[in-house]
């Protein structure tokens, strides 16, 4: 079961996902305790393993800190569904084996608290609360391969 936590905001940036004052560590479990802190101090408490974040445009803009993805992974967030993503964050997600789902009307078709299920390969979000299936464009095959391998470095190693 995955609950959607909807933030109807554009430009949710890496400083909000993990503030720079916590960048003196790269430990995911530690970073996770501050995940989304400057946006929503309750987030870590509300988020159950596998839950999703739903947001507007340009999610993850700002710094190149992969710590943002590690914090989300450490907090056991299952995926981020956003209208679109900032470039470096998007790339970091794939490299870390974490799904960025691009969905143009994300914050309109998913309401806060909806229960959802995502089929990443087919590109379908099943909104169980609203009993609706929503299609999205799945990632290109090479990116899915990287995510399936658990990230870019495993992928490089597997290819060797």
């Amino acid at each position, binding site marked *: 079961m995955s609950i959607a936590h909807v933030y109807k905001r554009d*430009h949710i940036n890496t*400083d909000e996902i993990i503030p720079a004052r916590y960048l003196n560590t790269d430990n995911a479990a530690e970073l996770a305790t501050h995940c989304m802190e400057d946006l929503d101090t309750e987030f870590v408490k509300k988020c159950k393993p596998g839950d999703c974040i739903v947001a507007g445009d340009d999610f993850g803009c700002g710094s190149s*800190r992969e*710590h943002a993805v590690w914090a989300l992974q450490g907090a056991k967030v299952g995926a981020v569904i956003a209208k679109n993503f900032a470039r470096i964050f998007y*790339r*970091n997600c794939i490299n870390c084996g974490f799904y960025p789902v691009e969905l143009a009307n994300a914050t309109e078709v998913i309401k806060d608290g909806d229960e959802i299920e995502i089929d990443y390969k087919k590109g379908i979000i099943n909104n169980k609360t609203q009993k609706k299936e929503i299609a999205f464009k799945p990632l290109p095959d090479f990116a899915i391969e990287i995510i399936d391998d658990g990230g870019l*470095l495993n992928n*490089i190693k597997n290819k060797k």
Partner: protein
Amino acid sequence: MSMTITEKILAASAGKNKVEPGDVIDAKIDCIMCHDVTTPAAISMLKAKAVDTVFDSEKIVVTPDHFQPAKDIKSAELHKRLDDWAKEKKIKNYYPIGKAGVCHALLPEQGHIRPGEVIIGGDSHTCTYGAFAAFSTGIGSTDLAAAIATGKLWFRVPASMKFVLNGKLSTGVYSKDVILEAIAKIGTDGARYKAMEFVGPALKEMSMEARMTITNMAIEAGGKNGIIGFDDITKQYLDEHLKDKKEYTVYQSDPDAKYESVLEIDCTKLEPMVAFPHLPSGGKPISDCAGLKMNQSYIGSCTNGRIEDLRIAAAIMKGRKVAIRTIVVPATPEIWKQAMDEGLFDVFYSAGCVLSAPTCGACLGGFMGILAAGEKCVSTTNRNFVGRMGSPKSEVYLASPATAAASAIEGKLADCRKYMK
């Protein structure tokens, strides 16, 4: 077939004659910038995966800068991991404390940036180096690890947007004001995944320092890279700064190269700009916002912590006193020394500023100038996100060194032109 400068550099790096926007290429990397926040993680990943090799120890430049000198035990541990690795791998261009400086000011100054090259760094403002007619972009730790081990990285060739800087900057208006205006026009995602190419007569009167301020902020519009063509000013800087390898390849955009959009900015009409919280796109002309009370002024960072910036600030502060906390941070040891030799430290001291060692420090809310809840800071840095320089309830106002200096004197957002003849 015609190509832009970005396309030409990427094509060459992939050993191709021609690329188009959207093509995915495997680029050969010429230079990798490594600092204390994102590199230790990359090192650990490489160790964990047992691919702990360095593709070329001469093409990696290492400097701790974000939390240096170490601000606490945890950052000291990061520095130690970086230091151990740099020594173990015999990284030729390692700048430990004493030589360390804010990465994007240090690399060009120490002669590590060459036109035509592909440069990456584990830092979003790596786009700064595009001022030298190079392709340069920021990446995360995993990409960094992959590039350190293999010397290669895949890229999708970005479409290019052209920014034509027309006219001439008037007194009190700087390249920082130009880029704040450009970002205000297109928004923080206006150039997402795109190359931002800057051209036009106004560039001809900008030093390399001033140009770096422009390309530095390409990421604040979501750009993949910012880039400026090669000219006499580029050449002169390189002649003065390149050390061991002095040769490089100059690429220029073809006259009929394709651009996704063209934006013209009339620099003659520009006023000093201030970007209001909490996005770099919140730019307003000073005449619309002068008078807003500030608690701190911060002059430093990879955007505006170079010698030219300190000279501009000092010229305004000379013989005057600041009304609020004012922190001046020369970006590198060379800049620090130069500022001292030129007597700028006396000016800052007499004005009541505090001077720090080269560091990123408060630019990213690390240390050395953190804001309390409710405080406002006018800052020469590049980002004013929520909590960027401290409390999530504080506010950052981005501006040029001249505006930050004038605002320091008045204790409120001020028009620097008053203090100039």
